[in-house]
Structures are given as structure tokens and as C-alpha cells.
């Protein structure tokens, strides 16, 4: 970085200093090394047919790494008589490609829709694997603004975590935005994509296969994995009330397994959010600071959830900032 620091010492006024920086920036950009070659393929990618025509791949609970290549979220697909709808594409191009290959093992039908359930990188970075299929990329109407705002830092941290394996993982923009709901005909099978008010994020979608009554909740439901709030805790609880009313025979959470009977898996998540809500309100009432609240709130939940240490304190921070104005 000697080329950057040397002009600064010589130039005196701030404006010329910044001019120097800008020039240094331009040269640095053009000199920026690009990764060459293909990212490695993802090994051991399996899908399970949890209901007729509904195939799920369960992601791991680990932090994103070059070993798991960002295979950290549940993704899958629904097969109609005419075409296939993918629910998310996973956390990197290799995951998206593995999903596409899994589709190909099941059916030669084209992929006509890819639903981007919300703006988190563990769900969307694999979408580029489907670009050649020219599907409709479907997202919530709030998705594009969030995507634009976050893409730079998401790309940066993907490179930090995956290194060369991040090659080809791109931001894919949606081509169809959902304000309320859309019905999609996959051929003999109608799928409803529904937009929700702010909950996990401000751009959550669910996918419902009406023929098997299979509800794909993405991150509106966590099973075993610590739930995450990147929207609003009160909104999340409100949306869960509506989700509970959906008559489903099968369900797919965004993280965790589909084993329990619906709507039983909502209980644990409801309890977790209620504990945070009540204890954070009490902390605010008792004049605890945000930092004290993150140290104290919800510790009784620690034994019940995986990766608690990664997400719990952030949830409390978010709840505190929301609830302190009540």
C-alpha cells in the first residue's frame, strides 16, 4: 500500500489529499486481482421428497466456510407436470449448481421459477446457477431495495469466508415482485407465493403447494437452529399467529428438520420470542442498558437452540432497539 500512503505525506490540504486517495482508488481497482477458474463442486448434496413432488435439501447449522461452501440453509424444489419451481438456491454458486443437478436427477422439465424467499445470503447466492434456465426470479416487493443496500457488504463477506470458492456467486435481481400473493401453475399443481409484513426480514415470502398442502416457510420458521430477527420481533410474533392458521400437511423450515407435525414446531420459536420480548421489556423498565440486556436476556433458552452464541445477542439488540420506544 506504499503507493497510497506516500502522496498523503507530501500533500497538505485535505482536498488534495482526497484527490490523491481517489486516484489511488482508481488504480487499485484496475489492479484488483480477479479469481480465475471454477469454484469446487459441493460433495454429498442430497434431497429428500417430504411430500409428493416436494424435494428438500437440509443445510447445515455450521458457519459458512470453504468446507460447507455456504450450504447452510434449507432449499428445495417443487415439480409440476409442466415445470419446476425452486425455493431458494443456497449460499453460493456451488450450492445452487448442486440443487440444479438434483433437479436434473429427478426430472428433465425446465425450471420456470426461482423463489428468493428473503434477502439473506445463505438463501440467495446460489441463484446464478439458474440464469441459463431463464426462470422468473420471484421476490417480495421490498427485496430489491434491501438487496441493493446490502449486496456490497454481502459480496465482501462471502469472499472473506469462502475465498476462491466464492467465484461466480452473484447478485441475481428478481424479475417478478410480489406485493400480496401470486398463484403459479406448474402444470397440475398450483403453488401460492405469499408476501408477509415485516417479520424475520421486511421481505419474507412463503411458498405453498396446494396439491400436497406443503408449506415452505423459509426463515419464518427455525427448528432447532436459533431463530433470527432481522425485521421486528413484534411483527414476527404477529405473522406467526397467521402462519399457525394455515392448514398444512407438510412443512419446510428455513433451518432445521421437517419432522414434527404442523403447527407444533411453531411452539418452540414462539416461546423463544416471547421470552426475549418479556425479558427485554423488563430490562428496559429496570433501566438496563442495551449491552446489559444482551448479556442477560433469554439465557434460559441457551440449551434449547443450536448456534445460540452466533445469533441470540443480536436478536436481543434488535428487540431492545425496537422496544425501547414503546
Amino acid at each position, binding site marked *: 500500500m506504499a503507493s*497510497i500512503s506516500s502522496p498523503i505525506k507530501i500533500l497538505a490540504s485535505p482536498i488534495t489529499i482526497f484527490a490523491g486517495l481517489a486516484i489511488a482508488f482508481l488504480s487499485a481497482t484496475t489492479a484488483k486481482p480477479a479469481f480465475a477458474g471454477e469454484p469446487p463442486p459441493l460433495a454429498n448434496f442430497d434431497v429428500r421428497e417430504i411430500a409428493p413432488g416436494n424435494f428438500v435439501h437440509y443445510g447445515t447449522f455450521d458457519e459458512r466456510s470453504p468446507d460447507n461452501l455456504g450450504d447452510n440453509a434449507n432449499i428445495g424444489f417443487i415439480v409440476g407436470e409442466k415445470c419446476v419451481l425452486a425455493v431458494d438456491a443456497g449460499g453460493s454458486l456451488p450450492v445452487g449448481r448442486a440443487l440444479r443437478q438434483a433437479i436434473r436427477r429427478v426430472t428433465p422439465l425446465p425450471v420456470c421459477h426461482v423463489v428468493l424467499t428473503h434477502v439473506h445470503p445463505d438463501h440467495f447466492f446460489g441463484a446464478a446457477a439458474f440464469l441459463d434456465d431463464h426462470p422468473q426470479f420471484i421476490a417480495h416487493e421490498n427485496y430489491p*431495495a434491501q438487496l441493493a443496500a446490502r449486496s456490497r457488504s*454481502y459480496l465482501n463477506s462471502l469472499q472473506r469466508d469462502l475465498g476462491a470458492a466464492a467465484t461466480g456467486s452473484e447478485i441475481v435481481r428478481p424479475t417478478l415482485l410480489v406485493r400480496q400473493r401470486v398463484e403459479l401453475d406448474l402444470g397440475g399443481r398450483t403453488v401460492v407465493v405469499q408476501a408477509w409484513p415485516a417479520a424475520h426480514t421486511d421481505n419474507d415470502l412463503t411458498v405453498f403447494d396446494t396439491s400436497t398442502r406443503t408449506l415452505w416457510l423459509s426463515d419464518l420458521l427455525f427448528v432447532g437452529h436459533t431463530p433470527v430477527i432481522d425485521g421486528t420481533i413484534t411483527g414476527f410474533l404477529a405473522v406467526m399467529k397467521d402462519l399457525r392458521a394455515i392448514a398444512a400437511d407438510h412443512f419446510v423450515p428455513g433451518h432445521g428438520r421437517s419432522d414434527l407435525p404442523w403447527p407444533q414446531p411453531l411452539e418452540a420459536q414462539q416461546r423463544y420470542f416471547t421470552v426475549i420480548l418479556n425479558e427485554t421489556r423488563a430490562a428496559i423498565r429496570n433501566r438496563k442498558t442495551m449491552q446489559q440486556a444482551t448479556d442477560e436476556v433469554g439465557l434460559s433458552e441457551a440449551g434449547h437452540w443450536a448456534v445460540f452464541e452466533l445469533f441470540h445477542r443480536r436478536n436481543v439488540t434488535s428487540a431492545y*432497539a425496537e422496544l425501547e*420506544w414503546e
Partner: protein
Amino acid sequence: MNICLRPAWLRLASATLLALFAVIPAYANEKAEPDPAQSQYWGPIRQLMFADRVINPDARDVIRVYLNLRADDSSTVPVVVKAQIDQTEKEYIKSIYVIVERNPSPAAGVFHFTPESGRAQVETRLRFEDYSFVRAVAEMNDGRLYMSQRWVKAAGGCSAPNGKKLPESLLGKMKLRFDDDTITYHKPNLVQLMIRHPNESPFAANFVEGQVPQFVRSVKVTFDGKPVLDAEVDFSLSDNPNFRFFFTPEEKGELKIEVEDTHDRKFSHSIDISEGVPLPGG
């Protein structure tokens, strides 16, 4: 030279250019804490803000930054900056500069204190665009400078979208929360100031290009006309800016807050306080 005292357009220009500077290294957010003395970010910032003045490094006996190594939410990171020395008439901390060196606009805030402040201490919440050192530089009444810093792992806070549009009726609304049930004279009392304000970051994508971003640029707290806390701040502060600080009342009086934002809007809030009278709390 004080970056925060210069005209808004210049500050924005600086901020923008610094943002360009901030993306030069391809992988800025390294996993291990780098050497603070070797930081390539700090040189230009220190040059701009303090020119060639001597800054005593690692002065943890004068000033300290407290925060968690791994931030829970990069757009809302509580940071405490705390003097380790008493404020006396003879020797006191005049200003504390809080600098997030890898933020698009690194000078997050300058907080001015007096011997009457009791303690030169402030807690606020910051946005972190990238893994960064957060530095606190204390300027003594005789002009000496002392610095210490903490490394924090948090990223994406400045480019995270600005919050929902606040209804005009809520903008600038303030809330004070005291740490105790009532005020105690002659000792530092802890008070929290909350300001309803989007504190827009111009680096958020939902920010409309060409507009002057709305963020709080100054906060003045007085007690019966005497300064308690005087702060020049920036969009490195989280939305709904939040401050915790001390003030030492000698008798009953009016605690007054005056806030100004980049759209030249002025907001104010005040309460009368006296010993024994219950205060608004939690």
C-alpha cells in the same frame, strides 16, 4: 483541523472519497486483529483531523473504548468511551473524538466536555461498515492528545438500509431516561437521551442520490444554561441516536436538549428536575 466543523458539503465530499478509499483492499475484513499502529486507514484520517500534532498512542490510562469484539448487530453497536482521569479545573479532557477508521465517514462524533461534566464519558450506538478499529482521541485542555482503540468485528452497518420513514410528527421527538429514581445534587447523575431520527446514511442504497442525507449533526445538552454535553455527530451513529452521559447538578434547574440536523431542522426538549422529585425512568 476538525473535520466536523467544516461545511456540510465538504464533509460529504470527504466522506465519499473516504468511502472510495475504504474499499481499496480487496479483503478488508481480516479475521485476526491487525496491528493498530500499522493501519493503512489511520494515517490519512489522523493527518486530516490532527495534522502533525503528536498523539500519545495506547493511552489506556487516560481514555478507553469499551465494546464487544464481535458486534451483535453492525448497525447498532453500543460503544462506551470513558476517561480514566478526573475532570479538574486545572486538567481536564476538553474533547473526545470517536473515530471508526474504516467507516465511509470515519469521524463518528466529537464530544466536548467541561470541568463541570463530572466525568468525560459517553455511550452511544454506532454503525460499522467493516471490521475496524474504533479509536478514541482525548484532547486535553492544554491541547495534548491521547488515544486508545478497540478492534471490532462488524460489517455492513453503514450500507444497511435506512429505517422506515418516520412520520413527521415523530421526527425529533426525544425521551430522557434517568438511571436513578431521583436526581442527586453534587454528584454525577447518569442520563440517557434518545432522539427519534432516521440518521440516514448516504451509503444506504435506499438513500436517494443527490439529496442531502438527513442526520443529526449537533446535540447540545445544558443544565440551567450551562453546558453539559456538546456533540458534533455523524451518520456513523445508528438511527434513533442514543447517548448516555453524566451531569452534575448543584441545585434544581432545567435540563435542556437542543438538536440540529443536516436539513437545518431544530428540535428541543427540556425537563425541570429537582432533588426528591421522581424522574422519568424505564
